[in-house]
């Protein structure tokens, strides 16, 4: 009997060892995984009670945590007058609905749990100080951001401005917007009601039009087509391009017409410069047919199409259609058919041309610093692609300056500063108003800022909608803000 009892004793020890092994796996190895879950109330409550770092523009906080006298020790707050302007960037910090924007992607830095802050945390524990999160400095230019936001007043649309040399995002605005304070409130019933209202709102205030929504870029895409044409070596700015009033397309009975239903600037064979100046559809359709879809797509991808940018905010990837036939290629060459771009992408096209053809990787976070101002990380400018050669870039710049000085982009002119730009008006369906676009950079000889403006809806008569009249004035204000004018 005793040998059987001994075996049972061993079996009992094995059972207990299994419990210990499983607990070890759970509490030592699986713990991080479980603590990272969104539905983990303990972690959420604890994080909600942390002195979270600020999100800064210059030295001004656009998001900060203030002590609060309720069950959570801190209240996340966004300065009232500018909260809605910065909402697409800061995102929100909600107990019930999680986080968005920089609040989401820089969460571990902001709440101090990031591995890079481990040393700081140990010091806090040893000195018996409360854990403090790191602050995140944005690359945004406050004046440009507010100019962009107020420029969009009363409209649906978005603005993105970039510093061409570095890729720093200077402005990123989307309207209509929302007030993140309403979602960060500790009054959870109110938060729930706000969330429901925002989600049911037909104007989609929660959608980030600057980077997450895709729109037909219309004529602004002609910059890409022109870049492909110049890069091919077959064209230069003075090359004559067939540009009749009506361009027949192969395999189909429909064709392309110019906006004014006439030929291009009085000629059936306008130069490339003139074609861009008046944004002639038939001329760029001709180029598209000549170069073919693959050349266009390659050029678009060099400007960043097909890639997601700004991991901070998770931008959508712009796209050029996969396998268009000849007429579809012609339409794609003028930014119609299935070409889809974000305002960020079109700003990158201008910025790339402005920077001698070198498209810089856009970024939004300049640095992360601990509560005692030690830098944890600093973003360095990084080249994304050489989209065109410096020669081609300089030719494109001249053509874009011509657009603003003599062509469709006159509304983008700034006193004493040479502006290079391109307008766009994109049709989608007859039922909805076209999208008005303008993308530009300035000054043309030493670019400090590149900008793209997209107006989805402005409550104006359909005939009044054109990139030049609607979008260019906003771009102008943003560029002026950056240039300090």
């Amino acid at each position, binding site marked *: 009997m005793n040998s059987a009892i001994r075996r049972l004793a061993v079996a009992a020890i094995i059972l207990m060892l299994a419990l210990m092994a499983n607990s070890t796996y759970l509490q030592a190895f699986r*713990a991080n995984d479980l603590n990272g879950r969104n539905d983990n109330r303990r972690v959420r409550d604890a994080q909600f009670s942390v002195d979270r770092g600020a999100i800064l523009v210059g030295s001004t906080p656009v998001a900060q945590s203030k002590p609060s006298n309720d069950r959570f020790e801190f209240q996340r707050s966004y300065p009232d007058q500018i909260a809605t302007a910065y909402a697409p960037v800061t995102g929100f910090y909600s107990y019930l609905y999680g986080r968005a924007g920089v609040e989401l992607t820089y969460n571990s830095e902001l709440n101090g749990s990031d591995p890079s802050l481990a040393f700081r945390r140990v010091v806090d524990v040893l000195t018996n100080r409360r854990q403090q999160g790191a602050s995140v400095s944005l690359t945004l230019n406050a004046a440009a951001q507010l100019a962009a936001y107020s420029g969009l007043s009363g409209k649906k649309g978005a603005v993105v401005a970039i510093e061409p040399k570095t890729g720093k995002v200077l402005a990123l605005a989307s309207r209509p917007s929302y007030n993140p304070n309403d979602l960060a409130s500790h009054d959870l019933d109110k938060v729930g009601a706000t969330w429901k209202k925002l989600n049911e709102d037909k104007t989609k205030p929660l959608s980030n039009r600057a980077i997450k929504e895709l729109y037909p870029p219309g004529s602004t895409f002609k910059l890409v087509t022109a870049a492909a044409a110049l890069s091919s070596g077959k064209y230069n700015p003075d090359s004559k391009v067939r540009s009749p009033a009506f361009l027949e397309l192969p395999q189909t009975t429909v064709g392309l017409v110019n906006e004014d239903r006439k030929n291009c600037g009085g000629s059936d064979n306008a130069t490339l410069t003139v074609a861009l100046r008046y944004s002639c559809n038939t001329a760029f359709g001709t180029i598209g047919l000549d170069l073919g879809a693959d050349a266009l797509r390659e050029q678009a991808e060099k400007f960043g199409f097909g890639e997601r940018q700004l991991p901070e905010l998770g931008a959508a990837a712009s796209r050029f259609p996969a396998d268009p036939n000849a007429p579809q290629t012609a339409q794609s060459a003028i930014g119609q058919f299935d070409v889809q771009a974000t305002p960020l992408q079109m700003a990158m096209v201008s910025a790339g041309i402005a920077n001698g053809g070198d498209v810089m990787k856009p970024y939004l976070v300049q640095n992360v610093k601990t509560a005692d101002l030690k830098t944890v990380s600093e973003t360095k400018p990084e080249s994304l692609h050489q989209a065109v050669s410096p020669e081609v870039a300089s030719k494109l710049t001249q053509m874009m300056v011509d657009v603003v000085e003599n062509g469709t982009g006159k509304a983008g002119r700034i006193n004493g500063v040479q502006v290079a730009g391109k307008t766009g008006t994109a049709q989608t369906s007859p039922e909805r108003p076209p999208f008005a676009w303008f993308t530009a950079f300035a000054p043309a000889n030493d670019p400090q800022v590149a900008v793209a403006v997209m107006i989805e809806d402005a409550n104006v008569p359909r005939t009044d909608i054109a990139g030049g009249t609607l979008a260019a004035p906003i771009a102008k204000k943003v560029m002026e803000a950056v240039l300090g004018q």
Partner: protein
Amino acid sequence: MSIASTSMIQIIPRSRRGVELMLLIIAIAVSVGAYVNIGLTVQDKVPASTGYYAAGIGLLALIAHLALRYRAPYADPVLLPCAVLLNGLGVAMIHRVDLGLQAAAEAAGREPRGPAAPQQITWTAVGIILFLVVILVIRDHRRLQALTYTAGLAGLVLLILPLVPGLGVDINGARIWVRLAGMSFQPGEFAKLCLVVFFAGYLVVKRDVLTLAGHRFLGLDLPRARDLGPILIAWGVSLGVLIFEKDLGSSLLFFGLFLFLLYVATERAGWLLIGGLLFAGGALFAYSTFGHVQKRVADWQDPFQEVGGQVSNALMGQAWGGVLGRGLGQGRPEILGFYGQSDFIISSFAEELGLTGMIAIILVFTLIVERGLRTALGCRDIFGKLLATGLAMSFAVQVFVIVGGVTGLIPLTGLATPFMALGGTSLVANWAIVALLLRISDQARRPQTPAAPVSDDTIAMAVQKQ
């Protein structure tokens, strides 16, 4: 006795009561320390109830100790301190969750539920009284052998009790409670005790026929079909418990205990094989037939598919505790509500004391089981051996089933964590079980009277000489 007696371990007869007292003082100090710590962390003051608590745990433990000195001086010195430590920590954690639930209720503007810790201290007192009764009244565990069939009958009645209409109540989907005169208790906890007595007594009588008759098959000695009777009955009863009372844990416990004792009595692994197959068959049948079994298995495979589920919540609590724990009073065990002090109390410990505390607690349980089995090894009579084995293994199975369920090792089945979980019946029954183990160990470790006519060893030597 058989030749197997030669392997009986020799225990040098020393009473070791002084060691027990030392260990007891440590156990009480740790428990009271935990209680005070919780008060200091949660309320910034030493709890006003500390005196009541310290007296409850400390005095009761000392009374139990004195009873052992008086009536069972050679009893195992480790069992009582282990039980006191677990009981004391359990009450402290119940108090901790009380405080958490109160704060949560106040925050939500609800009327807080009355505290459960004082109840548990009262039940501890009842448990110690029963402990004293067992130690003082049962002077020799062998007398229980006479009650074999009475105990069996009592066990069955207790098992069936919750099914009696008007008496049994459904709580959380399991019908294992009886409500009588405003008090509710779980008869299954005492059925466990009665059934172990019955199994042990029955097997003492039947072990020869179960051991000797049978055929060899595939290298295993298999019993005869008609000798399968008792195992089939045990299987049937435990299946009945599962089906009618939806109590997976008890079902596993009863069947497991019977099988272990059968194995110890006969030393034939064939029984384990047959039992294992029967258990697998029963489990498969239950899984394919009953929704609540399927749900338990599904919740085990993916605890997070159940929104707001207890297991997922407990897992997150344990993860939150990590290796070193949040610290007593600094976790959020009240998130599990009432379960944080009853079925899931072990998860509350894991959250606040971390993996370190969890392993320490499991080790204390392991100590109880192994000291119990050591008592069985040292015991001189077969009935005592079987009884001690059954009682010790009941702790092992129970701890494995509930802790394994809470930590996600096996599907969750509702069993109380011995000595710790909130609940009077379980606590009282466990104190009775420890008392019995101590009673047997006193017998096992007591110096053999020189007047004994023939010792087992003499017989063994005589047999060897032949």
